[in-house]
């Protein structure tokens, strides 16, 4: 919530001329990524917390920082359209659970590697109701060969959310979608097949 309050302030201050306003989402996106990564390092890498606490904290940050439902819908691809409301809701929940279980535990292995935002550019598609910024960053897994991370941040008013992460040019959303598509096209071609698979993954 503190982050959101900070954005509101930043956005409120930057409402000036229309030109300044057009670019303000880029600066705010950079602040947003910085703030989110600081929070993640602060809370998730604490060696003294339990796995359950880490997962709960990760879920909170994930919901706060990422367009979880939008990503889930994109990843489900064409099968989202035909799915029932109940299936969609079940799928969204499972998608979040599986991501949380997969990613939260990795933060326990973090040991002080440097994370550095290098800059940002506007990537707003034509005729889009939302602004999109690409925030470039480096993650120093080793001092000499950092990994290039690119955050796609969509914003609308004071709402800022990450919609995709690219690791050395490889999009997490696209990879996940291609994989899900393959699973679904082999199993009955509906969202239910994916739900089944995700449930197995979460519980097993």
């Amino acid at each position, binding site marked *: 919530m503190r982050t959101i309050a900070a954005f509101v302030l930043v956005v409120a201050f930057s409402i000036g001329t229309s030109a300044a306003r057009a670019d303000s989402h880029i600066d705010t996106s950079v602040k947003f990524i910085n703030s989110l990564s600081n929070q993640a390092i602060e809370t998730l890498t604490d060696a003294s917390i339990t796995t359950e606490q880490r997962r709960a904290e990760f879920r909170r940050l994930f919901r706060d920082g990422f367009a979880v*439902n939008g990503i889930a819908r994109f990843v489900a691809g064409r099968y989202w359209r035909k799915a029932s409301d109940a299936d969609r809701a079940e799928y969204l929940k499972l998608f979040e659970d599986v991501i949380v279980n997969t990613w939260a535990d990795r933060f326990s292995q973090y040991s002080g590697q440097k994370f550095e935002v290098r800059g940002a550019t506007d990537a707003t598609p034509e005729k889009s109701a939302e602004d999109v910024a690409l925030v470039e960053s480096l993650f120093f897994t080793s001092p000499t060969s950092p990994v290039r991370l690119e955050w796609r941040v969509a914003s609308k008013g004071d709402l800022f959310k990450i919609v995709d992460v690219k690791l050395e040019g490889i999009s997490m959303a696209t990879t996940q979608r291609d994989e899900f598509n393959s699973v679904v096209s082999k199993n009955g071609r509906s969202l239910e097949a994916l739900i089944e698979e995700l449930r197995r993954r979460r519980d097993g």
Partner: protein
Amino acid sequence: MLNSVFDIKVIRFAAAVTVMGALSACATPPPAGDQDARAAYEEANDPFEPANRLMFSANVMVDQLVLQPAAVTYRDLFPDVLKPPVENFITNLFQPLSFLHALLQGDMDRAEQAAARFFTALPTLLLADTFPDRKPVFEDGGQTLAVWGFEEGPYVMLPLLGPSSVRDTFGTIGDFFADPVRLIAGSEVTTGRSVGNAVVTRSKNLEHVRELQRTSLDYYAAVRSLYRQQRAAQIRNGISEPAHSAPTIGLDLDEPDTDGGKKETAATN
């Protein structure tokens, strides 16, 4: 003599791959009426999928029996002080081929970088990284064909060599013959380089591959997607794609009010 025997082996191998590709069972395209299935089939662009999956399983087995143990041995038992020179040597040995391809792509800047890296490292017997602040140049036949406008074509899983596409397979075959290192030093050197590179690369992604195997719902499809995206990034030389080509993911499902609604539905299920 040894050289020509090896050449013949490679040609035979390439011929075998081609024949196998032609004979292999193709995936049956879904009926034209089923639009979703048809679109998914075309998007996957993998008409040889059944044969590719079979080859993939064989490659995974070889990886587990040979490459992975070799990579673990290299990581854990090879002296750490000797790793940088070995890795520099392999990287430097790729620079002549990269130089050639940067030229063919009309990229003088990268051609110069590749040549500079190679020649400044020569006095150190190619063991030094003479430009530690700059990433080495890696260009190959597949990337050059892409720059020249050739489409990637269907996905192909090559025996031992792993993921490829029709375009990249042609690139790989061309590279075998055009590589200046092979022409000057012989194919034993390029073969050694390929094997060394495979072990070193594998040693650096042991954890990542294990994670991917553990977490993916369809490992084969995940690798296919990663391969294509990685190649696309290499062809662009790491420069970001133009904004319009990226997937559009909207915020409409994640605005505070809709989000709350969704969570409520999710909770009741």
